[in-house]
Each structure stands twice: as C-alpha cells, then as structure tokens.
C-alpha cells in the first residue's frame, strides 16, 4: 500500500499509528499482535457471538433478498482492502460505506442479518487466508459484523418515525455513529490487551481517526437510498470509479516516490564526485521538510520543497572534482567556475514546470534579500542549506557545533535568513531531540586527509569556531 512521502500520521508511535503502519495502511485490522491466549480468546469469542447472532437471525427472521446480498457481499470482499481516502488520522476503505448501504437496502427484509453478512464479507482477506491467520479473521468477522448490526439496529429503530427520503438520510447519522462507536470500542479493547495499556488512553488516540469515518458512512446511506430507488446494480457503478480513482492515486503516489528516488540517486552521483558533501542534498531536504512541518504547510507544498531542496545544487554535477574538494582558498578564476554551477542549476530547473518560476530563487537562495512576508521556497532552502553546511565537515573545515550553527542562524535573521524559517528549523531540531555538527557526525574519522579544524576556504565559516582568534 503506498505511503505518501512526508505524510506522517500525527501521534507517531501511538497504538493506532503502529497498527496502521503495521497494516501498511489497510483498513482491515492487520495487526501483528502476538499470539497470546487472551487475544485469541477475545477474537474467538467475538466471532462466536457474531456468528450466533447471525444464525439466530437467519432462523428467526425474514431472509434478506439474495441478489443484493451477494452483490454487496462480493463488492465488500473484493474492495475492502483498497484504501479509498487518507484523511489526516485515518484510512478509509469501502467496507464502511457498503455496510451502511446494506443497512439501507435491507431495511425492509433482513434488516440486521443482511448488513451483518455483507460487512462480514470484509473479513475475507486473501493474505490472511493464505497466512492462515485465523485469529485475525475471527476478530474481523466480529469487528465488522457487530458494527454493522449496531448501525442496522439504530437505523431500524429510527426509520419508522418518518417516511421521507430526507428523514431516512437523517436517520443515517446516528446509525453511522453507532457503527463507528462499536468499531472504536472493539478496537480499543484489542489494542489495550495487546499493548497492556489503559483502555482510556487507547480510546483517546483512536477516536479522531474513527470520527473521520462518519462522512464516508453517510455516503453509504445515500448510496443505499439510490440503490433502493433504482436497483442494487447501481452500487457497482458507483464503486467502480472510486476503485479506479484509488488505483490511479496509488500509481501517482508510487511515481512521486520513484521520482524522489531518482533525484536521490542523482545526488548520490554528486556525492561520488565530492564525498565531503555526501548526503548534503538529502539532509537539506530533511531540514526543509522540518521547516515545512513547523510552518504547517500542506503535503503538496512539502513535496515541492523536498524536491527543490534535492535539486538546488544539481549544477555541482558539472564542477570539476578537483575544485569541489580543494582544501585551500579558491582563486578568483576557480571561484567563477564553481559559481557557474548556479547558472547551470538555474537553466536545468527552468525545464521543470513547477520549479521554473522559482528556479532563480532556489538556486541563488543565498542572494535572496527580501525577508518580509511569507517565507518562499528560497527562504526555506537557504536556512536548510546553511544549517547543513555549518554542521557538516567539508574539505576546508570541520563541522561546527549545533549551538554555533543555531547562533549563526539567529544572528543573521533578516540579513540572510527569513525569521520564520530560522526559528522553525531551530524549534524542529530541538523538539525532535536531534543533534548535528561537531561530535555527532557519522564516521567523523573516515577522511583520507582530515580537513583543518577551522578553514578559510569558500564559505569556510572557520571564524565561527569557538576559540579562534577573531571569533565573533
């Protein structure tokens, strides 16, 4: 299941996120819970209760019409594992929507049994069957079946109170809420048992994601009314474009990830030329993403920023290796050659539509001199680039400490750096408890010729090293 780059779930590390992450984004509970006896008993009991209810209903009450039952059940079985939407804290599949559709479609015949059977078809998950994960299948049977039964019961209780389409749609709201409530309760118990945590805490973490399910459930109610008005055959006609949209969206996410991988490969090529900047572009992209996260930018803006950060130094690919690694100061002619990479970077980036308007800014970010208003791509890249340059060892100077780098950022606000970007990066690194710079570098001794402790090469910033005469 594709995970959109940068789309971190809030509360990373929470039980729900771990559950989702372990599931690879599947709405079906694909938790890797340990095969503990308690969990097994819990899952088995749930499935047993659900099946007992279903069998009792099948014996006692009117049977739901077979054609819609088979149709909706097959749709749920085939599409439940396909994530449709990814709101901030949850993942949504077709099962919720089609369960509510079944609640409406079967309201006159098999009002409880029909939705239960349709929903339980969502437990038919081929990977679980192949892996013989009977506990998971049992849990899902109970989880889906009881949720649908609760929704159907509430809907059935409210339906006789009104006869208009509008009233029936309104009745779908508490029914959807009942479905979500039972979902939440059963999942909370599962996670609490698995992790040994208090149910209250787990409930608090899971609740936001489950609430986002309600609009999709209401969709299902509308679809059910449409199916009743016309024919249940319209349901596949509604679901088919959604499934295609989902597959297309997945392809787009995969292509975006592949695109980023391609750019990362090219930065690796750059690092073959200049090992002192190994990982520089990737780190600048990470820092740019930190800033974007602190500034509250959306997924597309963050993606564009990461891309801009990865490519901002592409022109270095054409700078001779001897100049990139020169330990001493560059001559004016050599400096011009190195600066030429900026022109080339500009020319290269102009060929990419969404970057073309900002190519000059991205490449010449150190020349940006307007720090009023909203931060731009150039402002973000400037701060990220400078921070990494200061906290990395180069051929002409060793890494500075993180404290010195932070001080440099603060001292040059509105001179070289945009205030919001500088403060955002400092806050992000501090909040994450991360450390960069002197003493925290990877493989600090792995240089063929160790660079000087403080240097005066291009952008050496050696004068910022503490203890150096003339330090500011």
């Amino acid at each position, binding site marked *: 299941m594709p995970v959109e780059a940068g789309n971190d779930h809030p509360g990373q590390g929470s039980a729900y996120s771990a559950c989702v992450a372990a599931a690879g984004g599947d709405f079906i509970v694909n938790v890797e819970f340990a095969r503990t006896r308690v969990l097994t008993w819990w899952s088995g009991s749930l499935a047993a209760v659900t099946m007992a209810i279903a069998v009792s209903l099948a014996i006692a009450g009117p049977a739901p019409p077979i054609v819609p039952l088979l149709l909706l059940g097959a749709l749920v079985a085939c599409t439940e594992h396909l994530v449709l939407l990814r709101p901030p804290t949850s993942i949504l599949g077709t099962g919720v929507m089609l369960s509510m559709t079944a609640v409406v479609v079967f309201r006159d015949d098999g009002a409880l049994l029909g939705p239960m059977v349709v929903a339980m078809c969502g437990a038919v998950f081929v990977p679980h069957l192949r892996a013989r994960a009977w506990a998971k299948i049992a849990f899902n049977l109970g989880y889906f079946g009881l949720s649908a039964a609760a929704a159907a019961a509430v809907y059935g209780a409210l339906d006789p109170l009104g006869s208009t389409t509008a009233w029936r749609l309104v009745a779908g709201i508490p029914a959807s809420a009942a479905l979500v409530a039972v979902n939440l309760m059963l999942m909370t118990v599962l996670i609490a048992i698995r992790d040994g945590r208090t149910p209250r805490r787990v409930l608090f973490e899971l609740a936001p994601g489950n609430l986002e399910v309600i609009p999709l459930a209401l*969709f299902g109610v*509308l679809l059910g*009314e*449409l199916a009743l*008005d*016309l*024919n249940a055959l*319209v349901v*596949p*006609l*509604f*679901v*088919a*474009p*959604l499934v*295609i*949209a*989902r*597959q*297309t*969206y997945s*392809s*787009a996410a995969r*292509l*975006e990830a*592949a*695109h980023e*991988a*391609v*750019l*990362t*490969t*090219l930065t*690796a*090529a*750059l690092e*073959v*030329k200049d090992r002192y900047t190994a990982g520089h572009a990737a780190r600048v992209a990470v820092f740019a993403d930190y800033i974007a996260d602190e500034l509250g930018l959306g997924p597309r803006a963050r993606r564009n920023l990461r*891309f801009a950060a990865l490519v901002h130094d*592409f022109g270095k*690919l*054409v700078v*001779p*290796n001897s100049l990139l690694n020169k330990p001493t100061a560059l001559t004016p002619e050599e400096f011009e050659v190195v600066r030429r990479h900026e022109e*080339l970077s500009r*020319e*290269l*980036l102009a*060929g*990419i*539509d*969404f970057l073309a308007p900002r190519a000059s800014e991205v490449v010449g970010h150190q020349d940006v001199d307007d720090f009023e208003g909203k931060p731009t791509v150039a402002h973000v890249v400037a701060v990220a680039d400078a921070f990494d340059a200061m906290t990395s060892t180069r051929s002409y100077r060793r890494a500075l400490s993180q404290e010195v780098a932070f001080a440099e950022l603060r001292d040059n606000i509105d001179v070289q750096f945009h205030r919001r970007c500088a403060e955002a990066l400092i806050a992000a690194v501090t909040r994450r408890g991360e450390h960069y710079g002197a003493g925290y570098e990877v493989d600090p001794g792995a240089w063929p010729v160790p660079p000087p402790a403080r240097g005066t090469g291009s952008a050496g910033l050696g004068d910022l090293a503490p203890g150096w005469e003339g330090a500011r």
Partner: protein
Amino acid sequence: MSTRALRVAITVGVTAVSAVVAGLADPGGPAPGLIILGGGIVVGELLPLRPPVRGSVPLSFAVFVVLAGQTGLARYAVIVIVAELAASMLVEGAFISRVLRLAARLATATAVIGAVMAIDALVPDDTEVVQLVAALGGAVAALVVGDLLHAVGSRVRVRRGLQRRLPISLTGRSADLIIVSTAVLMTASVEGRDEPGFGLWGLAFCSIPLLMAWYATERLAAARTTYDQSIQTLSVLPEIVGWVPHGRATRVAQLSVEVGEELGLERWELDRLATAALLHELGRVCLDDPSGSAPDAIAGAGVQILSATDELSGAAAILEAELDPETAPVPYATAGAILTVVGAFEDASHGRWPESQAAAEEGLASLRPSYDVRTVRILETVLDSARTRP
C-alpha cells in the same frame, strides 16, 4: 486560485444563477434542470480525465448521455451547441485548435444522441432497462468517436494510430470505464424509477466518484509530467556544459524509439529504451575527464548511477547490455543494440541527420561495415519514412 479553478467557479456560479432565474420564471418546468446540465457540459470540458496511455476524455461525455435521455433532439442540439461554444471560450489553446476541438465535441455529441435515439427506436418499450441500455450505448458511442477523432487529431499515421489505440487495454480504458459507469449511473439517478427519485440531486451525488477519479488522474498526470521533465532536464545536463552536442540526447532517444517500434517492442520497452537513451551520457558527471573519456567508461558510470534506483534499473540494464551484449539478457540485448547503432549513427552524422540527407547518408555508410545489419536496415527505413512524413 488557479485559472482553471476560477473558470470552473465562474461557470458554476453563472449556471446556478441562470437556473434560479429559470426556476422562478418557469416553476416546475424543465428549464432549470437543462441549464444545469448545460453548465455541467461546460465544467466537464474544463475537467478532462487524462489517463496515461490514452487521449484525454472530458467529463462532459457523461453529461451528454444524461442530457440525451432527458430531452428531445432540438433542445439537446441547442444546449450542446451553446455549452460547447461557451467551453471553447474558456479552454486554453490557439484559435484553430479550439475550433477543431469544438467540431470534435459536436461530432461526439451527435454520436451520443444518435446512439440513444437508435436504441430507443429499436426497442420501443420505455422501461428503465431500455433507458440504461440507451445510456450505455450513448456513452460507448461518445468514447469510440472521441477516440477515433483523437487518433486522427494526433497526426499519427492513421493506420498505425488505430492499431495502437483501438485494441482493448485495461490501463488505457480505465477512463472509459469511469465515463460509462458514471453516465449510466447519472442517467438512472436522474430518471428515477417508480418514485421521482433523486432528480438533479442524484446527478450531483453521482458526480462525486467522477470528480474523485478526475482528481486522481490529474495527480498522476502531474507526477508523470514532473518525472518526464526531470529525466529530460538530466538528459540535457551534458549538453548544457558542452560535453556533447546540443540536442543529442533527444535525437538519439527519438530515433531509438522509432527503430524500436519498427522492431515491435512493447510500449513499456520503448519507454525504458527512451529513458536509457536520454540518460546515456549522464555518467560523464562522475568522471575526472567528462569530455574526453571513452564510451565504455561513460556507459559504465551511467550504469552505476542508474542502477541505484528501481525506477531506472531497467535503463541501467540497457546501458549494461551495450557494454556486454553477448551476456545481456534478451529483453535488454535488443534495446542495447538499438542504442549502440543509433548512438554511433548520431556521432557519425555529427547530429546533422535531421536536416541534412548527406549527413544521414554519411552516418549510415559508416555503420554498415561494423554493426548489426538488420538494425542498420531498419534505421534506414525509419530515416526514409521520416523524410517522407508530412
């Protein structure tokens, strides 16, 4: 707000106001609904589905089908003509392309109403099944006509274009499936059954999957555009610096793909060959002497760079096949041979073969003694075709 979003918003606003006015002037009449469907046509033209391996499919195709089921021929014609004229003013493009687009849409709309009327005439019963079958026929007619017109409009050689576009391919036909299913669904929801049904609210509700599909295809199209542009940008990097002649990568890629088509390579093989051709010289960036290094060293460095990611590993395998054709796996050996021959031709003709027949002849003459005879012959055929192509 983007230009397109603004145009959609204006269209929706104007349609809403017009529908309200019509509703006040003619309460309970069909005018508001027909105006909304007309507005839907305009919006549909502004929001085309752009699947990867097919021409774009405007969402208005689905609305044509609904409109055909809701009104008679005269009103249908008036609404379609007015809506398409309005859409022609809102879509971007040169005047002549807008005129051609308008003509194509009117032809498609004619096919839709023709199919619906024909099915209604063949089956006189006015049951809901017949209505849905008529909607299905109308949607299919729209897609077939639209596809044919696109093939012709793309200026591909018609016979080859039809051979490539008409065979059913799931990847290319996903947009068709979306339009067909949504058109039938919309028709059914607007028509209703025993009860009045959802009417135009059903139209709005049933457009949700269509709009979601549109958003997804736009996202994929944008990702594909950015990806292709990035590859293109990297391909010109050696040219910008002056290590290789300007335009080399594009010429080699174009010619390699045409030779590959003649040899019957699949679309995905051609895409991989094009990528390998575009990034063939990228390995120079890693070398100490980028402009003077041997071809094998350049290709070897290129293999190292490209093989680092899954997406480019196929292109890397083609470059590797160039270096060692004897041991290369079959899928890559052919592509590698094509790239070798075309690259040598480009170098021998000094890049002047597109405009100078003498340069092309000189290039071919240098290839004949040393390279695969079949590939050289096919290259010759491709060059001849290029010369005679309008």
